[in-house]
């Protein structure tokens, strides 16, 4: 299985690893049984994501997509982060092997969960913004 140079870069030098102690939104998706967990922390000020950090238990693609996804939303308004698709993350990484594309879906989900958490903490119903979020993602079907 071949990873692109960009994926290798984001895997070996992942950006934004860590946690935010006083985060404004935290989202965790995936499960250990499947072998993929992504946890994303967001700091939001005046509708702008001023900081994003991640922790990931998962493969090379999972770590690289977490790194790239957090890079793509840092410094952006919430409205843009809401529009982030897994396809955009995969493109930014110059592509992923087909069997690994589902890892990018996890990244998109983790960000949406973190934003949903931010809305809930502020007494806002997240559904109009993030849509219906599945609680537990089932392992990839094959």
């Amino acid at each position, binding site marked *: *299985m071949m990873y692109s140079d960009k994926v290798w870069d984001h*895997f*070996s030098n*992942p950006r934004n*690893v860590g946690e935010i102690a006083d985060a404004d939104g935290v989202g*965790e998706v995936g499960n*250990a*049984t*499947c*072998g*993929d*967990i*992504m*946890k994303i922390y967001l700091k939001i000020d005046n509708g702008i994501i001023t900081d994003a950090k991640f*922790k*990931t*238990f*998962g*493969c*090379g*693609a*999972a*770590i690289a997509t977490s790194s790239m996804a957090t890079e793509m939303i840092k410094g952006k308004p919430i409205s843009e982060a809401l529009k982030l698709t897994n396809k955009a993350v995969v493109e930014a990484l110059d592509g992923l092997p087909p*069997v690994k594309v589902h890892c990018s879906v996890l990244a998109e989900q983790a960000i949406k969960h973190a934003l949903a958490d931010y809305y809930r903490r502020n007494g806002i119903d997240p559904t109009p913004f993030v849509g219906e979020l599945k609680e537990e993602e089932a*392992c*990839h079907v*094959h």
Partner: protein
Amino acid sequence: MERFVYADNAATTKISKPVLDAMLPYLTEQYGNPSSLYRFGNQAKRAIETARKEVADVLNADPFEIIFTGGGSESDNWLKEIMHSLKKKGKHHMITSVVEHHALLHSAQRLEKDGFEVTYLPVDHEGQIDPEAVRQAIRPETGLVSIMFANNEIGTLYPIEQIGAICRQAGVLFHTDAVQAAGHVKIDVKQMNIDLLSLSAHKFHGPKGVGAFYCRRGIPLTNLIDGGAQERGKRAGTENVAGIVGLGAALRIANEELEQTSAKVSAMRDRLIDGILTTIPQCRLNGPRQNRLPGNCNISFLGVEGESLLLRLDLAGIAASSGSACASSSLDPSHVLLAIGLPHEVAHGSVRFSLSDFNTEDDVTYILEKLPEIVSTLRSMSPLWEEMQKGQVSFEQ
């Protein structure tokens, strides 16, 4: 990359110099077809028969009983033919184990689709099988038992001689997939009552793409591959002469050097296992500590995932493999690790190092130097490890 440490010999091995030297003439000047009538072809035929004798001698079999195949998978697939023949005698039941290689398991599953019954014996927490379990599973309609000689993932060595005796007494054919064992541990098909056996050259410093199937004289054998009369009419196709020559030489040499290689490699393996278990917290050895293949070291690192471990190892110049779902092209976690009772998350965190005679003490030292940092870096990034540290989740060890 600072240096390259190849620690994945269970996946494949480097062809050794004497083997390469033995093969080269058959890739260059001695290109005759062994079936040709003229002397130029006879030379190639002679080389194949020499290789056949080499394999037979190592196994304590008769050359007649050795058929060259395209590898271990093909040899395992022959069991389908054996079972189809046995069905005509009312034997439609086969016994095997849950930890066999996929070539065997998928062949067994295909037999089930064809109406056969297969019993998959479970294993204990070290991957071991009790011969009694085999005896108890045998029924009047059992035609074949197939238990691997040694497990490729966790190194468990099986009680083949005892199982062979049980099968011989019960009048049931006994096959063993010896792909990981041949060339590394002693095999004696007569003493061990083995009727059928699979092996593959590239696991003992021979070339890829060639293996052998041992079938005891007297056992009817129908072809997997029909066509010309090669391999006494049992396996059609112009022979992979150079590959067969390489296989014979590699097995002969491996057998000659077996005791000393095994001692050297086991010592390195033990240093690696002990080194990892003592320097890295929260990890566990998969498979038995003692009764395992000389080069095999399989360890689960809790809180981290196998593919990311392998990639970091790769960045450090170390080649290994993993039982993680993410590391397999099928996205299934190792069936062997699940069979020994590991929870999925522990199976996902497994890494298999497998050493050979070509590894050095420096290689082991290098792995022991690089691994702790790799594991701790990935752990610092892992939400699962974080939960484990906070006591929110734990895995029985």
